């Protein structure tokens, strides 16, 4: 938090700059800045509720802090944070299913409404809506693993990283993405 002045308002807590966070804390916060949006988007696309996704992202970076403090591997931290988020997301989804809570529809109606108001005029909007709805329909019909491969790829992960996050083989990832992209390409033309 930025501190603008050094005067203190009597009786009110003054938020000071953190008293010397360690280099490791700074590094973890830097990684948080870099990845939080991508992780949140991925968790939301899995169907995790927004409030739970926020909590999971916090847990991911607390776990990363402990991981690095213990001197464990720093190799490919991007894949590491996505993997931890993915596993925590799966746990949360299974907890929600057990307690019979309503799963958040990853591509829900509210989102479709948001998409609706982008195009400049009613005709374009209608055409854009129809196209996007068609695309959403195709996406929803895909197996969960294909959807997750696509989301992770859209968040910038390489095939090898996606394989690590989802715990599948590299050829499994390329097969999944090849299949999904050709389906989407057909949907685009249709």
């Amino acid at each position, binding site marked *: *938090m*930025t*501190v*603008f002045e050094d*005067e203190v*308002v*009597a*009786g*009110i*807590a003054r*938020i000071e700059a*953190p008293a010397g*966070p*360690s280099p490791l*804390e700074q590094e*973890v*916060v830097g990684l*948080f*800045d870099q990845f*939080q949006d991508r992780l949140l*988007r991925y968790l*939301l*696309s899995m169907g995790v509720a*927004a*409030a*739970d996704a*926020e*909590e999971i992202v*916090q847990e991911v*970076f*607390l776990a990363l*802090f*402990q991981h690095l403090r213990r001197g464990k591997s720093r190799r490919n931290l991007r894949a590491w944070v996505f993997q931890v988020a993915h596993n925590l997301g799966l746990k949360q989804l299974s907890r929600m299913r057990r307690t019979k809570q309503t799963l958040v529809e*990853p*591509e829900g109606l509210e*989102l479709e409404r*948001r*998409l609706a108001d*982008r195009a400049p005029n009613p005709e374009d909007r209608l055409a854009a809506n129809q*196209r996007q709805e068609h*695309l*959403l329909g195709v*996406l929803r019909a895909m197996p969960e693993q294909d959807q997750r491969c*696509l*989301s992770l790829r*859209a968040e910038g992960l*390489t*095939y090898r990283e996606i394989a690590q996050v989802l715990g599948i083989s590299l050829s499994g990832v*390329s*097969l999944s993405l*090849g*299949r999904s*992209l*050709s389906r*989407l*390409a*057909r*949907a*685009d*033309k249709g």
Partner: protein
Amino acid sequence: MQYQESHVSDQDLALLADGELDPGRTPEVAAHLAQCWFCRARKQDIENAIVDFVRVHREMLDGRLPPPAPMRAMLKARLAQIAETNRGWWPWPMLQTWCYAGAALLVVVLAGTFWSYWRENPSRASARRPVPVSFPEPSLTPGAVATVNKDLICGTPRPKNRAVPASLRRQVFEEYGIPSAEPRAYEVDYLITPALGGADDIRNLWPQSSTAAVWNARVKDALEDRLHDLVCEGDLDLKTAQRDIASDWIAAYKKYFLTDQPVAVAR
């Protein structure tokens, strides 16, 4: 059909579009594409599909992302707490483990005792829970400011109160002894609004009852607007405004609206 089989597969086209095709195969596929319009069109379709997917993916999800600053502040606070807790407190790991085990046992015994007490005296136990209605608990929510610089407050468009992240909301409910509160019954509100320099900090947040009939959130919003106007028009010192709203917002309302009851607030 034999002609069809000589084309590049969808999987290879996707790998090529993604730069993930095996370097050994790339020249062969590139040579085929150079002479095959059909495969080039298919590759273009795949690239278009990628563009469309990314657009839909972003548009669907970006609007649901929470503001980053409170999440970041929360993470920093939690990291600092962990770092402090774990800072070389005990030199002998084994002894430390035993100590933790002892503490855990003590917690279990105390929890058991409390549970028995609660079962025998449920009304007394629940009566101790503070249920805030219109006024924050000063020891938990004294107010916290990020700035006392009037130019920053008045020089930019007035910020709306940011959404409080769910994890921070839960922490506020826990602090106030209402961990299982119905979220719709309370609005986790800034005591000193960010428009008056209030900070994204748990010391500046409290669960304001949504059901309060008189001194409710809309009345407090009106006070915040009034104070902001007074400060920016030079009629009130920013620090005084912050102090007044933090120490007793209802008294501040009466003071700045010259009334003992809220005036009608348009919805």
